[in-house]
């Protein structure tokens, strides 16, 4: 049956008739400019929290340029968030394949995501422990070994009061 062949045919047609601006932009935009184009931001709904109060985290990635931008990442999990250096507030590593992927933005695109931290750290597969009062650093970055060097990380500090 030719069912599978038909979308490919159509895709070929589209390729010949239109320009893939995202790919073209990726080819012609210098790498240094791509890094500078993406603004990474993290913010919380408050700075001080009562013990046990959920921390609402807002993560924003913004393409500053009027052209599509694509950034290579080290895994299909394009970005991460940490609490005091622990990814997703967990000491348990999650299985994510170690293969390159690309985080894509259309022109001037802003991507905004939410996370909630319940002031607990995962210490084993089945256990979470509440954290003590104090200051905690919440960080967000693209999954690249050189993310910090290229300014693709951001941090916010919160305080849990006793």
């Amino acid at each position: 049956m030719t069912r599978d062949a038909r979308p490919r045919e159509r895709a070929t047609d589209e390729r010949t008739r239109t320009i893939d601006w995202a790919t073209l932009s990726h080819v012609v935009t210098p790498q240094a400019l791509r890094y500078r184009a993406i603004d990474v931001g993290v913010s919380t709904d408050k700075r001080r929290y009562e013990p046990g109060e959920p921390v609402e985290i807002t993560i924003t990635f913004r393409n500053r340029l009027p052209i599509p931008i694509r950034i290579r990442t080290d895994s299909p999990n394009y970005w991460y968030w940490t609490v005091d250096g622990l990814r997703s507030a967990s000491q348990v590593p999650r299985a994510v394949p170690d293969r390159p992927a690309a985080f894509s933005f259309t022109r001037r695109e802003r991507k905004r995501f939410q996370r909630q931290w319940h002031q607990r750290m995962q210490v084993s597969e089945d256990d979470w422990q509440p954290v003590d009062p104090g200051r905690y650093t919440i960080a967000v970055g693209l999954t690249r070994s050189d993310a910090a060097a290229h300014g693709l990380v951001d941090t916010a500090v919160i305080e849990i009061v006793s």
Partner: protein
Amino acid sequence: MALLEVDDLVVQYYTDDGVVRAVDGISYEIRAGETVGLVGESGAGKSAASRAVLRLLDGAGEIVGGEIRFRGHDILELSVDDLRAIRGDEIAMVFQDAGAVFNPVYTVGEQIAETIRTHKDVTDSEARDRTIALIDRVGIPNPAARYADYPHELSGGMQQRAVIAMALACDPAVLICDEPTTGLDVTVQAGILELLAELAATSETAIQLVTHDLGVVAELCDRVLVQYAGEIVERAPVDDLYYDPKHPYTVGLLAATPRLGDDRERLPTIPGTAPDLIDPPTGCRFHPRCPYAEDCCASRRPSLVDPASGRPDNGDPETHVAACLEYTGDLEAGLDYEVQVRDAADSDCRERKQQGEPR
């Protein structure tokens, strides 16, 4: 040995928002001739788990852990050719959107016959005869004429029957039905269920029925797996699950099932919504919606245990197991719900009350 064994299966999807762990370490097995229901709300990961069995996850989905064994062979290790030989022949699938299954520019009969020709050594006319017999078997009238119909010429119910006919084309050992009655009106739904029930009763084909409809499960299944937020939270023979549910989520699902003669003005619902599988709740994933949740539920993930003894799941598919901290003695107030069993035949109403007892 079980026909199909799924062991600690993990399925992930990658999105801009993060990693969606649609299936998180589920294990189950299906034996020849039995019908197993996989129930849960939309977004619980039922379809992802079922598609993973045939490695039919779409682009962004990936199996990252676990094993799927069919007749002892790991499906995840099979070559593309070996897998293609199993798909449609040994393990077949009935998808929920029948209209999207068929190619609109080929006749229904030709598409079913193609499945037969691919897997069996038959002539064109033998494949055609067998297709007409299958169309007849699934209850589509005038099968010889329907063979030459295009998909758009069939009604929704007939399309679903034709999809079942295609799935049965090679007498599969396992039939995976992914919400086969979704989108059909109740009379057509009843017809499809009757067809599946007859199939279960008259053949050795094992059926994995994915649904969010507990009424359908009661009608068809021997055993039930209740899936919530990517995890199995209860597993039981069908009677045990209905007469003595052990997990608060199952209790909520059963309470929300409409019944004839029910005099309640409004059906109870489970408060809240299914959790985000990118960032699921800590501890027991059901705790934000559970009326019996205590502090420990947010910090400890319960595993499947035998509710009577509190011992870990021994893997016996006939054992009733549930994942709730109540059964490991961690809840102080316990579970407090009652199960009413109404016998429709004599209108006799028996009542049992399950009280959570502090251990």
